[in-house]
């Protein structure tokens, strides 16, 4: 092979190699990515629905108290685990994500979605709901109630944390100055007196 034909062959190899670099095979590999489509199945879903009745190891929901908010069929009125500060903050966070759109940030039932025309959401500060047992709220989150759909996407522990936060909201809307620790009463006084003129102006 002459030097010229050798260099020509090399150039050809370089062009083919550079051209191959433009193919997208590595970008779009045939494996199935999360929620991606697949032609392998008739419904074209890569994510396969579980066969009915499938329970992953360790996911059997056999704790009636924890998973249904009931004991012997009756709604419970205590938490399945202690509610500490972290749990309450978690409840606040999850409440603001999943519940506030309809129930509003304070739980008055007038969230943005309701303002836009959804059937009025429950007001947590009405007597019926203030007197409801904790398990009831858990059950409504898990299974829905009236126009409210079930929120099964919320993890079990988070549902209980939300219930705790709902209780805190209920307490907050019916709190009195005596409920504030003595050491922080001056702060509350100041906040209240600051709010008073605005409230008066609204009347």
């Amino acid at each position, binding site marked *: 092979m002459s030097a010229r034909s050798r260099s020509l062959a090399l150039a050809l190899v370089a062009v083919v190699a550079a051209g191959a670099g433009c193919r997208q095979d*590595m*970008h*779009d*590999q045939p*494996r199935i*990515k*999360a*929620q991606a*489509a697949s032609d392998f199945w008739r*419904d*074209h*879903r890569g994510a396969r629905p579980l066969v009915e009745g499938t329970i992953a190891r360790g996911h059997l929901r056999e704790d009636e108290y924890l998973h249904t908010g009931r004991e012997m069929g009756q709604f419970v009125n205590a938490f399945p685990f202690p509610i500490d500060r972290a749990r309450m903050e978690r409840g606040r966070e999850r409440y*603001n*994500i*999943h519940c506030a*759109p309809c129930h509003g940030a304070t739980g008055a039932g007038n969230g*943005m*979605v309701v303002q*836009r*025309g*959804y*059937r009025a959401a429950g007001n947590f500060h009405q007597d019926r709901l203030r007197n409801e047992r904790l398990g009831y709220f858990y059950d409504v989150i898990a299974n829905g109630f009236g*126009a409210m*759909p079930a929120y099964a*996407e919320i993890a079990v522990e988070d549902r209980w944390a939300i219930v705790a936060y709902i209780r805190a909201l209920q307490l907050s809307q019916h709190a009195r100055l005596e409920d504030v620790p003595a050491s922080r009463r001056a702060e509350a006084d100041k906040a209240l007196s600051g709010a008073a003129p605005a409230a008066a102006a609204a009347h």
Partner: protein
Amino acid sequence: MAQIFPKSANALAQASIIAAGILAVTAGGALYYLQRSPYVTRQHETREQPIPFSHQHHVGGMGVDCRYCHTAVEKSASAGIPPTKTCMNCHSQIWNDSPTLEPVRQSFRDGKSIVWTKVNDLPDFAYFNHSAHVNKGMGCSTCHGRVDLQPLAWQEHSLQMEWCLECHRNPEKFVRPQDQVFNAAYVTPANQIELGKELVKKYGLKPRTSCSTCHR
């Protein structure tokens, strides 16, 4: 035998060497910028979708948290596209006779998935995990931009490797307080580097830059 080239042709030969150099640099530069240009990366380009879903309306206007729909973002690699049922949580009663939303209702009735077009599509040879980022002070808008201002979703950044590395090498430039991660309108404070260095220490950030971190 007479000379073919006059002596002045030397100047031409010298100029051609310089011209070839300039041409090579220009071509290289053009390729460099082309490869990083929105023409190639498809940045800021909206995609055709079965329903013109607006993050601007839902996030910016209604104030819906990212996690209301993208429920898996804190615990898995994929943030998750919500099932049709999530749309119907509100749209069973709101805009429930809108023709635009008919594909949603259709999907809810017959149980067939809505086929969305993926906007932020990393190459399959790059591993990425949402939960690892959002649980360590990396905000949604750092990568996705002001989603609350996007009428139709677009890809905000190049998603090229140098872009990933910019943060993996200097996380203090981008990290934010954990409670601000899902704040789409978060504004980087003036003392970002100072605050960032603190947060890097506090969250124990050690972003890796070895090849196998992402190419595994």
